């Protein structure tokens, strides 16, 4: 009885696990290996090259004409910009998402469902198309640019193809990822605790800080993670709204697997991206465990 | 009755989980349930009564022991091969089917022709007076109506045994009383064995031919409601069913039992040593001080409508309740000393 149930469970799980492990796990493993090889040949990878960490070194240093290694800031800058953009976007999403989630939780059941649908829809609609809409709004000869330039005293400004445009696009793309987890925490929140805080002499602001914030912290952490990680690997937004000078890690990876055709180097950049993600997620998990233990 | 039982359970044990974390829910339980019997498993939540019912239905498998239904060994048979049907606590009516489809479900599984399914589903619904609701969905029915449909659905395939898992617990008090009477009538009309699980002692005493009181995976006492009520054998049984007074005494080697305060009763018989005696509040009487077996202090009296309830304190500090049905009996004074008369045949010696 028990063993036949185990066999049945195994058979039911087999296709899902096989597909995910073969089409996601295996490729990631292969990429780790390729990141140690050299570019070459028609397929983009020289499979016979001896494994080395040269691709990782190239992220920071380059070989000068006379063979000495000198610091090459190109990728370091891109790396820092990616982290900064992801951090700024996470912060902006938090600032916009917190009030929205708070407000939603206080609505009637119908109101909440309508809002939930309105927040969910952008989450599922085409990322490319939504970023393209910002391209129309911000472009050089558009109404927005003309309106801004009419009041801007310091000469003509370009709204598109800069870090600000990318930050707007990223915030726009990932805002629902912040609102939804925050809302799910607020929805379950026991509002009588605020009454209790008021009763014990806390003002509205103090109640928010001392009672609400600590209790909704898990939602804030979850939402931040959901925004930060995809931002770090963003490709579409910087490709459409950023110019050549605002590339992020995703654009480097795409370029190496596309026009530059240096797959091992692209693989190394991908591994770095995964490593940052892993560090952030481990930090969160540790925080959660410490919190659970406390 | 015992030669040809409807259900017999022999030395059944069941544990959930394994190793150190295993929870033993049934310990070596044996019961024999006769044909057309209304048999009730009574006990607090967690006593194993529902697990025992689920073992009979086939939703759980016994770790050891044997279960026979109608003489056939069904210990390892799946639920769909057992001639029993269940009325679930939450009814478990299929929400995507009409009342008629629900009631006809088992008949369709048994491969009956369509016209016969319709006729028998109609008959079953008629039995519970729900025929006019045949085309409704369960969600459109009240709790009591759902309860009736659940009964009809379980009775439609004419099972040998009907299992009822706290079927009345979701109903309000008034409806519950009505359904109790209806259940009893249905059982005698259908002429099949009912195995009923409940934690409500009053319900168990009202409905059953026999009651098994369970605690911590064991059956403590089994018998007709009257003997369970009047002659509980365990402290737990006495405590669980109705109001009871417990008196700590000492059985003497010379026979007789010494009560707190020093008086000695001639019976009932017990092995020498400390004993607990149980007596129902309505079986004791207040008599003038000094003329009973013990003197006690009257703490409080309350009028219950049909009786007076007196609360007394015994010499060892234990409290004692008396229900006096004779309202014309003289009213003792509060705080005063009264005598307590205990007929020996009303005293019951309890096991721990």
């Amino acid at each position, binding site marked *: 009885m028990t063993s036949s149930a185990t066999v049945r469970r195994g058979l039911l799980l087999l296709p*899902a696990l096989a597909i995910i492990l073969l089409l996601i796990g295996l490729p*990631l493993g292969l990429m780790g290996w390729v990141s140690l090889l050299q570019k070459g040949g028609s397929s983009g990878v020289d499979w016979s090259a001896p494994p080395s960490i040269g691709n990782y070194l190239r992220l920071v240093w380059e070989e000068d004409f006379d063979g000495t290694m000198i610091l090459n800031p190109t990728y370091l800058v891109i790396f820092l910009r990616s982290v900064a953009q992801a951090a700024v976007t996470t912060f902006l999403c938090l600032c916009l998402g917190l009030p929205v989630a708070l407000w939603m939780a206080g609505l009637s059941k119908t109101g909440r469902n309508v809002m939930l649908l309105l927040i969910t829809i952008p989450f599922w609609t085409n990322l490319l198309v939504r970023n393209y809409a910002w391209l129309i709004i911000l472009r050089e000869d558009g109404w927005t640019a003309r309106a801004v330039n009419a009041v801007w005293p310091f000469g003509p400004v370009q709204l598109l193809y800069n870090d600000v445009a990318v930050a707007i696009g990223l915030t726009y793309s990932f805002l629902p990822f912040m609102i939804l987890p925050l809302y799910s925490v607020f929805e379950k929140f026991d509002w009588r605790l605020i009454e209790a805080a*008021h009763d014990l002499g806390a003002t509205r602001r103090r109640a928010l800080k001392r009672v609400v914030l600590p209790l909704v912290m898990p939602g804030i952490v979850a939402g931040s993670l959901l925004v930060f990680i995809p931002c*770090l690997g963003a490709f579409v937004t910087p490709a459409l709204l950023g110019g050549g000078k605002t590339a992020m890690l995703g654009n480097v990876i795409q370029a190496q697997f596309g026009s530059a055709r240096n797959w091992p180097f692209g693989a190394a950049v991908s591994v770095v991206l995964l490593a940052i993600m892993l560090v952030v997620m481990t930090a969160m998990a540790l925080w959660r465990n410490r919190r659970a233990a406390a | 009755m015992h030669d040809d039982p409807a259900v017999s359970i022999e030395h059944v044990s069941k544990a959930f989980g394994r190793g150190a974390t295993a929870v033993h829910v049934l310990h070596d339980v044996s019961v024999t349930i006769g044909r057309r019997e209304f048999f009730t498993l009574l006990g607090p939540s967690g006593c194993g009564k529902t697990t025992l019912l689920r073992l009979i239905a086939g939703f759980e498998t016994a770790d050891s022991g044997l279960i026979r239904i109608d003489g056939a060994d069904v210990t390892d048979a799946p*639920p769909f091969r057992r001639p029993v049907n269940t009325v679930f606590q939450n009814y478990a009516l299929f929400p995507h089917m009409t009342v008629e489809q629900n009631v006809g479900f088992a008949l369709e599984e048994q491969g009956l022709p369509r016209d016969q399914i319709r006729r028998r589903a109609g008959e079953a619904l008629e039995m519970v007076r729900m025929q006019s609701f045949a085309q409704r969905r369960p969600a459109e029915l009240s709790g009591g109506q759902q309860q009736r449909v659940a009964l009809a659905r379980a009775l439609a395939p004419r099972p040998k045994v009907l299992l009822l898992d706290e079927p009345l617990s979701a109903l309000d008090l008034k409806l519950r009383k009505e359904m109790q009477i209806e259940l009893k009538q249905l059982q005698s009309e259908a002429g099949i064995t009912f195995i009923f699980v409940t934690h409500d002692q009053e319900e168990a005493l009202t409905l059953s031919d026999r009651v098994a009181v369970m605690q911590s995976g064991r059956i403590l006492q089994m018998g007709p409601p009257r003997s369970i009520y009047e002659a509980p054998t365990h402290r737990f049984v006495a405590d669980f069913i109705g109001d009871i007074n417990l008196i700590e005494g000492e059985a003497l080697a010379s026979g007789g039992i010494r009560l707190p305060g020093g008086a000695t009763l001639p019976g009932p018989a017990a092995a020498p040593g400390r004993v607990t005696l149980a007596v129902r509040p309505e079986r004791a009487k207040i008599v003038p001080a000094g003329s009973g077996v013990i003197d006690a202090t009257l703490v409080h009296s309350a009028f219950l409508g049909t009786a007076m309830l007196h609360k007394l304190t015994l010499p060892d500090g234990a409290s004692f309740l008396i229900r006096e049905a004779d309202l014309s009996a003289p009213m003792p004074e509060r705080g005063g000393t009264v005598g307590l008369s205990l007929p020996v045949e009303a005293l019951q010696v309890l096991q721990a």
Partner: protein
Amino acid sequence: MNLRRFPATREVSIAVLAFLYIPVVVLTAYSFNANRTATVWTHASFDWYARILTNPSIQAATWNSIVLATAASIAATGIALMAALATRRAFPGRSTTESVLNLPLILPEIVVAVATLLLFVSLGISLGLGAMILAHTAFCIPFAYLPIRARLDGLSGSYEEAAQDLYANRFRTFRRVTMPLLWPGVMAGFTLAFVTSLDDFLTSFFLSGPGTTTLPVYIFSAIRAGITPEINAISTVMLLISILLVSLSFFLGRLRR
């Protein structure tokens, strides 16, 4: 005093809704603009919609997108349904299994996309529709799995016990009780998987071989070539399809149990 109302949350919420929906409205409005230069509004017209209907590249890309999304979401839903049934009850290793199933949700898509490209090329699997269907099936699994699991978790096990008690064997119980009750969850999962596949750009971008462009890949390369009213029109159509399908799955998910 209503404790649930915090000052300014309403105003911020309205601003956020505007922020989320104004670009969509602007895009839609421009798609009806008759003027070719797209900056000057002349008058409303359906010209660009008529034009995308007759554009052979768009037709081919649309067809590829539909075939891809249909194949990948059907496969993913079937696989996810099996996985959801298997992970319904607790067993040792369930949470690990769930993490593996949800892996595609956490990993950055661009990394998975180039890694898959690397695998296919090194194994000699030719790029194109087949490669895209395989990769899409993998990342659609969690999107189909989550709604089905949610529905299963809300489903009391006593319905199935009741069916077995009423003489239905395992298979009959699944067909007559489990599946009909699970159906809204399966449909919601299928819809979400379909939308996810239909909207996907990155994976298709790397795995589409020559001649098998999907609609998002076509739109991307068209944007790179310059903003045209046709892109506005086709983008609007894509948005509408997504909104329609997501609303549908939302209502399916909320269907009475």
